[in-house]
């Protein structure tokens, strides 16, 4: 069944190594408007993952060859800080960050009303400060909050969540050991209000039943994270407004 058979990821009592149930998410915290220099920004802590996202624009798209006459382009730069993992990462773009930047941009383009800003560019900078599996999902969540904070019109917020399979058991929100030694990983970008999927990748094999369980777990987690995102956006302004709202 793939994975590493000799690594025990589920305890004898059925819980996972960090004590979570199979359908339990790591703790998530969201803050909006953390960077004063950006037009919009967000900070998301998901388990031990920490991501900061800054949004700039809409601005004139440069170089001109990337301009689209009928819509804006979303320029995402996903980057992991050299100190984000136990082994130092060489700074700068690599194959992995390029791929994640591309899929994140495509996911965001499906929620942002890009047709409102022809020929423009919206710059989204995602910086992973600490990584513990699932950073692309944390990046998407942070980007959605930062875009909303920047006042960019969107159809919905998009939430990044993942579930997968370890020891032939479907679990929600894989941590580092489960991601490294598990059998499958299914990260998704979900529009929580409508339940649409804007982004989906699958690493490993899942049966139809297992896939459906993953979907169910992801949808449930997306709704929980969505509430935290909405709360972060509202809290910022209600506090600023002296609690008037």
């Amino acid at each position: 069944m793939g994975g590493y058979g000799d690594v025990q990821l589920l305890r004898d009592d059925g819980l996972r190594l960090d004590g979570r149930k199979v359908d339990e998410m790591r703790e998530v915290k969201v803050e909006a408007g953390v960077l004063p220099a950006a037009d919009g920004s967000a900070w998301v802590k998901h388990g031990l993952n920490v991501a900061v996202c800054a949004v700039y624009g809409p601005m004139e798209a440069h170089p001109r060859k990337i301009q689209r006459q009928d819509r804006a382009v979303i320029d995402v730069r996903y980057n992991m800080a050299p100190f984000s993992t136990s082994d130092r990462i060489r700074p700068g773009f690599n194959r992995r960050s390029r791929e994640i930047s591309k899929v994140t941009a495509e996911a965001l383009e499906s929620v942002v009303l890009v047709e409102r800003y022809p020929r423009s560019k919206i710059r989204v900078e995602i910086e992973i400060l600490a990584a513990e599996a699932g950073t692309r999902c944390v990046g998407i969540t942070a980007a959605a909050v930062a875009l909303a904070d920047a006042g960019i019109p969107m159809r919905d917020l998009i939430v990044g969540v993942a579930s997968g399979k370890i020891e032939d058991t479907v679990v929600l929100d894989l941590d580092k050991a489960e991601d490294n030694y598990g059998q499958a990983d299914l990260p998704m970008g979900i529009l929580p209000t409508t339940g649409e999927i804007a982004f989906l990748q699958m690493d490993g094999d899942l049966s139809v039943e297992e896939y459906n369980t993953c979907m169910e777990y992801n949808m449930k987690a997306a709704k929980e994270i969505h509430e935290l995102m909405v709360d972060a956006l509202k809290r910022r302004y209600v506090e600023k407004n002296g609690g008037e709202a």
Partner: protein
Amino acid sequence: MSGATKGAELRLVTPGEAIGASSGVRAGTGTLIVGDNIIATKVGWVNNKNGVTSVDPIHSAYMPRSGDLVIGVIESVRNNLWFADVNGPFNGLLPMSLAPWKVEFGAARQQMDIGDIMLARVQEVDEAHNIVLTMKGVGLRRLKEGIMSEISMNHISRLRGDGDSTLRQLKEVSDCRIIVAENGRVWVDGDSDGISFMRTVLELVRNDGHMATFNASLEALIEERRNA
């Protein structure tokens, strides 16, 4: 928070949040009709007025509209036109024909160079967001003195007050000439004491513009200045 929501129940919404049924009402700015519902597309306060449901965004970028008074900073100069940063997604274009001077072809820099600041009006914005500016009009000119500062687009109405009442008070107590442009830029000119007072006011707008206590804080500042 706009004046339109005063007195009514304030409701803060986020993108994707259903505001209400779409039947019988029109979807205004910051909203979208999805199925039978009107949903918000921005973070902001719901505003129901004259059968139109809209969202007054808390934060938004400046989108130029024809007729807007703007303060621009010259970014580049060609032989017979200028490009100015107007705090929007695209630079505004000021052709020689809409400038107040008659200059020779190739001598545009003699009137306005890169970094110069000007007061202009948006002549035209097309669907591709090309912005044409004009400096032909009363009071439109190059701003050679004073200071320029920026505030959030959504705080402009708070700085101006109802019917420009706050702005008039500020002009009176600071003894400065003040221009609040539609693109969130503010120009102030006067003696150094007045400018210093206005810097404090603009700092207050930037930091506390959203607060319910903003008007009281501003009145206290004005009163303090009057009594000084």
